[in-house]
């Protein structure tokens, strides 16, 4: 049960943190259609995060931070808003800054590809709750992958500037992909999907190695400072 909780926490934190990043595009996207599409992705990931954090809390209540006696804060919120950065189990790929639209697209693409591989496998997981989350999530992730893949190709083949930015954005997120792919056990299927997108786009894999180290970047604690501020100011609040 502790293993299941840790695994759900990892999957949930990845979704929560990337949802927070993608939601920062709200009212900032290049066009209204993109504003709406990015909000959809953020909403899907937020939905996955809520289910996964709740599953983690149910599987192992000891993962939930202690709150004042009688606090009305549900488990999903205790986990999201009352843990410090070092207790978050997400990967570095999802927490670094958005960068420009190209970098966001590259990140969403890599994330969706690796996570979809994991969710397809988890669709037959022994835990009924997790497998149901995975089946629902897989459909969402396929949409995210297709959306990001279309833009990946569009930017690669659009203008000189868009291609330059796409390559730069891909190079910026690439060092953080291997640890995610490994944690998700994304395997050769994910590699094949990625290679296909890269081939259509006419873009090579970046020539940068995986980022050394583990844990978090400096970006996470700043992201959490903003995300958690209202909840923490009112530990006994009802919302």
């Amino acid at each position: 049960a502790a293993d299941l909780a840790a695994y759900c926490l990892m999957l949930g934190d990845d979704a929560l943190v990337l949802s927070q990043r993608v939601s920062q595009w709200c009212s900032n996207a290049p066009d209204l259609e993109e504003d709406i599409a990015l909000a959809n992705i953020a909403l899907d990931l937020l939905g996955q995060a809520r289910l996964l954090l709740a599953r983690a809390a149910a599987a192992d209540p000891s993962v939930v931070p202690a709150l004042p006696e009688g606090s009305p804060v549900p488990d999903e919120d205790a986990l999201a808003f009352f843990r410090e950065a070092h207790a978050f189990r997400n990967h570095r790929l999802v927490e670094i800054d958005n960068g420009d639209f190209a970098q966001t697209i590259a990140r969403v693409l890599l994330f969706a590809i690796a996570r979809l591989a994991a969710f397809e496998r988890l669709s037959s997981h022994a835990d009924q709750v997790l497998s149901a989350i995975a089946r629902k999530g897989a459909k969402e992730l396929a949409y995210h992958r297709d959306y990001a893949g279309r833009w990946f190709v569009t930017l690669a083949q659009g203008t000189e500037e868009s291609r330059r930015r796409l390559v730069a954005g891909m190079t910026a997120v690439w060092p953080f992909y291997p640890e995610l792919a490994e944690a998700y056990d994304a395997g050769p299927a994910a590699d094949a999907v990625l290679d296909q997108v890269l081939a259509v786009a006419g873009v090579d894999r970046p020539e940068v190695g995986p980022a050394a180290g583990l844990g978090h970047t400096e970006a996470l604690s700043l992201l959490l400072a903003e995300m958690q501020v209202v909840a923490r100011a009112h530990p006994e609040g009802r919302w």
Partner: protein
Amino acid sequence: MTSEAVKESILEADFDAIVAAGDRVEPRDWMPEGYRKTLVRQIAQHAHSEIIGMQPEGNWITRAPSLRRKAILLAKVQDEAGHGLYLYSACETLGVSRDELTRLLIAGKQKYSSIFNYPTLSYADVGTIGWLVDGAAICNQVPLCRTSFGPYGRAMIRICKEESFHQRQGYELLMTMMRGTDEQRAMVQESVDRFWWPALMMFGPPDEESPNTAQSMAWGIKRNTNDDLRQRFVDMTVPQAEALGVTLPDPDLRWNDERGHHDFGQPDWDEFMQVVKGNGPCNAQRLVHRRRAHEDGAWVREAATAFAAKASA
């Protein structure tokens, strides 16, 4: 009369008949130039309001205090983008492109609702905007579902449905907070204190200072006067405030048995004029934000255009 003028007068009679019958004017129908211009101005202003309106609420998405509220707020702001999209499309049926309208917005040459030039300072503002601002918007917009121009009326039907959903969500957030801690109740009251008067201003200046109302009503673009709508809003809102347990910050607010309506005080119309003129607390901030987002996205739009051209070549 020239034959051109004869033709015009026949067309105008047809148009007047359609409007008088309460039927819809459609994009391909003949319409007077003044009608078209007024519509473009009004629909564009409404579309811009949806887009600029994403900012004050969007300001709290990253700080929403529960995951459930974050999802609700994100979906709501997304709906506003969708409303903007329908309304820009309605405007495009009148021959003005979204690009052109965006250019006019960020050049400060077209307006948006002044309410969005007030800042959101606490999470309670998300609820208050839903309750009071969306509430006022609905009072303004429900009559527009019967407006004479077809695409606008149909967009309004869809928008009003979603707006009233947003209004209920906003009210429900405030209701939940009022059942929370003392600090939360104080937050709600403080927020209502700030938004009450600006919400009343959303109906526009008093009728005697609203010179275009008569023509717009004759054309079926507008269906009620500013003061009528304002009264309707106050009468609707007072019992909701009581149920919520907040005080509306107007010492003159009381039921008038004789009129069958609430009496209420006047907003600060000087402040209103200042905000309309561009000197509100956030006018500059809102336009800078919109302009930056638009300019930052230029290379993406250009890439999409270039890619589409290559694909179709």
